[in-house]
């Protein structure tokens, strides 16, 4: 290294330091993204996605695992991308499970009504 500090050299050092700190500052969002995606996957599993949306949940879990791996390997950009995908897929799995439950509940009540109506009609015609 040259003992003489030139202006460009100083500038380069400052820029690279800035770049590094910028890189370092990316660590926090990626960790947060991965954490959020983990929460989303857990919520989906709790909503019954394992039975009602297995493909979506599996894909979300797999993306989350890869995001975690990327985080360990300090590939924050990839970790963030995978976490975003995992979160979106987990949300889809959860929505799918919720809508399946709501739909089957609505269907059950409709069926209930149909049976009730049938009984009513039978009772009415029997009393006539």
């Amino acid at each position, binding site marked *: 290294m040259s003992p003489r500090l030139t202006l460009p050299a100083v500038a380069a050092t400052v820029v690279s330091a800035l770049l590094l700190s910028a890189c370092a500052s990316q660590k926090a969002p990626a960790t947060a993204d991965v954490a959020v995606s983990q929460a989303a996957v857990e919520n989906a599993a709790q909503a019954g996605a394992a039975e009602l949306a297995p493909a979506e949940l599996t894909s979300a879990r797999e993306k989350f695992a890869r995001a975690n791996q990327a985080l360990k390997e300090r590939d924050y950009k990839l970790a963030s991308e995978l976490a975003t995908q995992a979160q979106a897929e987990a949300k889809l799995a959860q*929505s799918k499970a919720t809508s399946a439950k709501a*739909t089957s509940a609505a269907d059950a009540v409709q069926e*209930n009504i149909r049976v009730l109506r049938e009984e009513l009609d039978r*009772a009415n015609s029997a009393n006539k």
Partner: protein
Amino acid sequence: MNKTFTQKAVTPLVLSLVLALSACSSTPVTTSTLDQARSDYTAAQNGSVAQYAPNEFKAATEALNAANTAASNREDLTKIDQLASLAKTKIATAQEVARTKQAEASLKGATQEREQVRLQARTAEAEAARRNAEQAQRDAEAAKAQAEQASAATRDAQAQASALAAQLAELKAKQTERGMVVTLGDVLFNTDQAVLTSAGTATVQKLANILRDNPDRTVLVEGFTDSTGSTAHNLELSQRRAESVRAALAQMGIERNRVETRGYGEAYPVAGNNTAGDRQLNRRVEIVLSEAGKPIQARR
């Protein structure tokens, strides 16, 4: 830097870049995933997804816009695919949320409907129960009326039977195997005549009353004499006396077809013919009253 060199070197570079760009712009950058995301989005837009899941639909719109922007910026195909895939997932999520909201709305409506149907069922049940109770009440009333009618009929029949018994007792009727028999002695006729005395008419009137009160009974009037005189005369006299009773009954309003007559003359005496008292016993008219609705057995 040398300006001349730069100009010489740059010109072909710019040319090739322009060519490359124009080649690209004639075939817009897209991927099958992006195409799919766009068509999913259109389908969601045409449905009621925006209405039922506005937040999710907005997120999906933003994701698709990001993918579209990447495509028009000719970014890396992998990057475009990634964004398109994300958009697809968000569109699907919006659709699922909308589906949930629709199901919930339907569930709410259906629950109300179910309550209505249940209410109808209960009303129908109550109505049926009321109708049944009313019917039972009517049945009970009818049965009671019927029972009252039956007991009234029994009372009537009993009253009629006891009235008949009293009337027959007054006539000194005797029970025989052919039925009740009323005997009119010859004192009720003028001697050797078939004309009823006033006492005889009064007795026949009692018989007429019985026949009027008991329309299902008929009578057989049988005439008898003692053995004095010719058989032919006695037969004729006994017949005339029987006929005289029928005529009197007819005058009292009893149909002639309910009264049969038979003259037996001196046959069937009830006593000897040696003394005046016995002969008087033989001079008689017997009136046989039928059982209700039955014919009278002939004398054996």
